[in-house]
Each structure stands twice: as C-alpha cells, then as structure tokens.
C-alpha cells in the first residue's frame, strides 16, 4: 500500500499529528541537526546529535514524586503521546533493539507506554551519511519494519508506505493519492543505489566467535591511551540504554522526585559500588565494555547485534575512536 505526499504538504502532516502528539522532527541547529518539538523540519538531514530515542527515553525524566513523611508515591505520566517524524532506518532499528531491552523480560512502564502510544514516521536514506555503516547490520539505508509510515524522497514528493493500521487511518485522514508503480520502483532503486554507495562497513561474518577470542588484546590498551573517557559516545548512541537514578528533595526536605538520567559506561564512576570498589577502573575495560556489549554481549543476550551503524559515536568523538576501525584491528588488519 503506497501513497504520495507532495513535499509542500509535509507541514500538514506535522500539524495534523500535533493535534494528538508531541511531534519530534529533525531541525537545523547551526551546522548540525537535532530532534526537536518545534521548528521547520529538515528532512534531508544527515544525522542528529542526540538520537530520536530521546522521544521515548528522555535524557532526564521524573519517574515519580514522593513524600517522605507519609510514604506517599505518585507516578508521573506524560500528558500527550509522542510522534517522531523523519526517523532514519538505523535509528528505527535501534528502537527495535531498545524494545527488546525495555519491553521484554523486564518491562519498563515509562518506555513501554510511550512506545505503545507513539507514532513513527520513518524516512529512507537516499544519500549515505559520512560516518554510517548501517548495511553491516541490515539497519539501513532502507527501513524494513517498525514504522507506521515510511517516506522516501522522490525529489518533489515523498513516497509514503504504510506499516500499520494506525498509519493507514492517518493516511486516510490526510486523503493522500495512491502512488504509481513507477514511484514505488523509483524509491526502491534510490535506496538500492544508496546501499551500494555506502563506503563503510563492519564485516560481521564470524564476528561473534572472533570477538570472544579478542577479550584480551593489546588494542584495548592502545585505546586506553587514546580515549578521553568523556562519555560522549554513549550519550549520542541510539542503542545505549543505561541510566542513573537520583532522588531530588525539595527545600523542605519532605517532598521529592526520583529522576533518571542517561548514564555512560565510559565514565570512571559507572561501575563503582559501595566503599569505592570499581569493576571497571581501567579505561581499557570500559571502552572494551562499550564495543563488546554492542557486538558480542548483546548478541548473546538478545540474538542480534546491538549496534546499528549510525556512525554518531565516531562522528562526535574528538579522538575519532571508530567501531569499524576497532573491528578491523581486532581482525588483524583484514
């Protein structure tokens, strides 16, 4: 089922969604892009600083408020569900991975509620971004599933593919024209062309077995010397899900809020426990944790790679520490 949307009508999509949702869309910020609830959508963005997971797992959120004296606890819930317009296939796949973490064996009600009530408009990449390597994990440049609507840029219009009942009724509400088979074909070709021109790739063949044998390797020590342990790579990653929890009391010291914020396994204090014990005091152990969690442990736990090849970690890293390069070194320069 496919439709077409003239580019001039994108605004209408956002306005229509805004009636029911808080609509995150990519907008320009200087020479970068960010997902924001306001501003003109910049649908041909390359990547965003923070991933759109922030709509479903905010960098900081109040989980509940409490009163110490009476032990009264009140859960905090959103007033409006969230919609994301313009999510790239890699970030979409990242949501699928987060679903495994937060809605699988252990359910995170905050994330779960937002996902279940959320609306997702994805957009295929017809131009590979500079740092991405999504084809390594079958995470792009075309989206396969997990969207309500999927757009492909056809020049003056978007092809609109429908991925859910919710998506279908929204298209009906907009009253879009059906797409021709030529439109559908052209979109397919554009995405295939983008896939062919992706310059970067991790060879995943036998990777899990290889990494199991590279847990001790001198490259981790080399990365120890290079990495700044600034934690920025975790913050920009669409599949990182660790968070810290702090209680914040008001000035009367009776009422307070339990707040969670994104955390980072590259930080020294991340694996610190009571009395100052620390499971990953060495920086090399921390950078190894980040890389092996994505490419080995996630596979062990969930049966899929935990990286989607969005390229943000290397793009924003001052030391240009790059999963593609790390895997090449661990493979022995292959």
């Amino acid at each position, binding site marked *: 089922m496919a439709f077409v949307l003239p580019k001039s009508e994108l605004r209408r999509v956002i306005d229509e969604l805004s009636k029911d949702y808080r609509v995150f869309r990519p907008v320009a910020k200087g020479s970068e892009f960010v997902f924001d609830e306001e501003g003109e959508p910049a649908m041909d963005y390359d990547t965003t600083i923070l991933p759109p997971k922030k709509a479903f797992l905010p960098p900081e959120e109040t989980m509940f408020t409490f009163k110490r004296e009476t032990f009264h606890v009140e859960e905090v819930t959103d007033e409006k569900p969230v919609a994301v317009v313009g999510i790239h296939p890699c970030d979409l796949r990242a949501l699928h991975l987060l679903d495994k973490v937060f809605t699988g064996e252990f359910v995170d009600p905050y994330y779960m509620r937002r996902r279940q009530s959320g609306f997702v408009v994805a957009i295929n990449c017809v131009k590979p971004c500079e740092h991405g390597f999504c084809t390594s994990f079958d995470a792009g440049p075309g989206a396969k599933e997990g969207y309500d609507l999927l757009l492909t840029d056809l020049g003056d219009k978007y092809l609109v593919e429908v991925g859910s009942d919710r998506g279908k009724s929204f298209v009906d509400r907009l009253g879009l024209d059906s797409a021709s088979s030529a439109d559908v074909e052209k979109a397919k070709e554009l995405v295939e062309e983008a896939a062919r021109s992706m310059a970067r790739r991790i060879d995943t063949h036998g990777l899990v077995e290889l990494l199991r044998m590279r847990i001790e390797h001198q490259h981790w020590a080399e990365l120890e*010397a290079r990495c*700044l342990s600034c934690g920025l790579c975790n913050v920009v990653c669409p599949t990182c899900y660790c968070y810290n929890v702090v209680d914040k009391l008001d000035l009367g010291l009776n009422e307070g809020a339990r707040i969670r914020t994104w955390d980072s396994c590259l930080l020294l204090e991340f694996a610190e426990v009571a009395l100052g014990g620390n499971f990953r005091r060495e920086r090399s152990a921390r950078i190894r944790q980040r890389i092996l969690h994505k490419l080995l442990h996630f596979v062990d736990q969930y049966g899929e790679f935990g990286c989607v090849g969005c390229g943000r970690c290397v793009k924003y890293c001052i030391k240009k520490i790059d999963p593609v390069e790390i895997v090449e070194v661990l493979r022995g320069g292959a």
Partner: protein
Amino acid sequence: MAKPKVAIFKFASCGGCQLQLLNIEDKLLDIIGAIDIVYFPMGKSENLEGPYDVGLVEGAITCAEEIERIKKVRASCRILVALGACACYGGIQSSRNWMPQRELEPKVYEHWEALSSTKCFGIDEYVPVDLHLHGCPVDREELLEVIKGLLMGTRAYLRPHSVCMECKLRENECLFLKGIPCMGPVARAGCGAVCPSNGAPCSACRGPANDANVESFVESLKEMGIPDEQIARMFRRDASTAKPFAKVVSMYG
C-alpha cells in the same frame, strides 16, 4: 536534632562564591529554618565563635597567616567544605605559582618587600577537607544539593565526569570539532556545560574530571595547531595545582 551551626569563611578570593550563597537567599530562607548561619561576616553583622557543625570555606591560602587560620578553622568545624575553585585548587591566583615571586611581586605592588606570600594553594594542601564544591563560581544548584545532603546525612550527587557529557546532553554543536580549543573533555562537570552552551569554550574552572586523560587531550590540541605556550596557559588558568593539570603546565610552560 538541633539545628546545625554553619559558618562561612573567606580567604584569598573575590567573594563570588559567597555571593552565590546570597543569590540563593530566597531558597535559603526555606532551609534557614533548618540551619543556623552563625558566622558569615560578608552577610551579617553578628557573628558567633565556634565550634561549628559545618564550615564553608571560600578562597585560597596564600600566606603564612592564612595557613595558621585555616588550621584553626578546620579545628572548629565538624564538616569542612571547600567552596569554589580557589578553595579547591587555588583558583585563578594560583597561576602565579608558575612565575618567580621576586619577578612577579614588584610588577604588582609598590612595597613588595613588605609581603610574605607563600605559593597559592587550595585549602586541602594544609587541612583535610570533607567535601569539594567546584566551580568559579560554585553552581547554585550544586550548592543547594550539598546543603540538603548535609542536612539529610546523605552524599549529594555531584557530577565528577567530563563537561562533554553535559554538553552533549544539551545538544550543543561541539566547539572542539569546529577547531576551537575547549577544555570540556578533561574538565569536571556539574555546571551544566554553561560556557559551551553559550558559545564559549570551557576553561576547566572546576578542575580536572575524575578520569581526565590529559596526555591524549594535549595531543589533540597540538594536532589542532595550538602552540605549547597557549596549552600551558589553558591548564594554568583556574586549577593549575591539580596534579593532572600541573603536569601539563610544567611540560609546556
């Protein structure tokens, strides 16, 4: 529990951190019921002798008289808090440690013969400190968290990691990647990345982050083409007595 008695002391400093205390007075009034500020020469005229439950110390130690005084202050306080960059690391005036005193003093003072300055240090060069509250000036939110923590007998969460982390959470364009030398990767957070968020590079006024990799960071500064002399100046500015920073200053200064 009786109200904790709080004292606020000043050593070599500009008074800016104490001003932060006065700036949160409206909020402080809410807690004031819970604490007794009994010694605060900058804020009130009636000041009581110790002992005190909590002492907040602003300022660096720069002469023999101050060394004696900080020891007495320490002895009079059950919990001692270093308030701001000067009390933590000697602050901006500690950049003078890197020049010979006999050259420096005549440039500033007419009667320099009368001076008896020592090298400039944070207070924990001389006395044990229970809690460091970083920043030039200290952050009001952190200050409030610390006061609340002291009252609750809990340890306030003060971010010990890099400024980059907070900077990225605010989705700033990275200055460093644009070729502007920003100290964020090696600087201690807690300020909410206030400088980069306003377009100014971080100057590391809060000292080094807990796992600052200064060697690797300096390498990047050199690749960027920053001259040695400027590198030394960057690390000398606010916290040059902190070991990781001192190492860079002595290598490049």
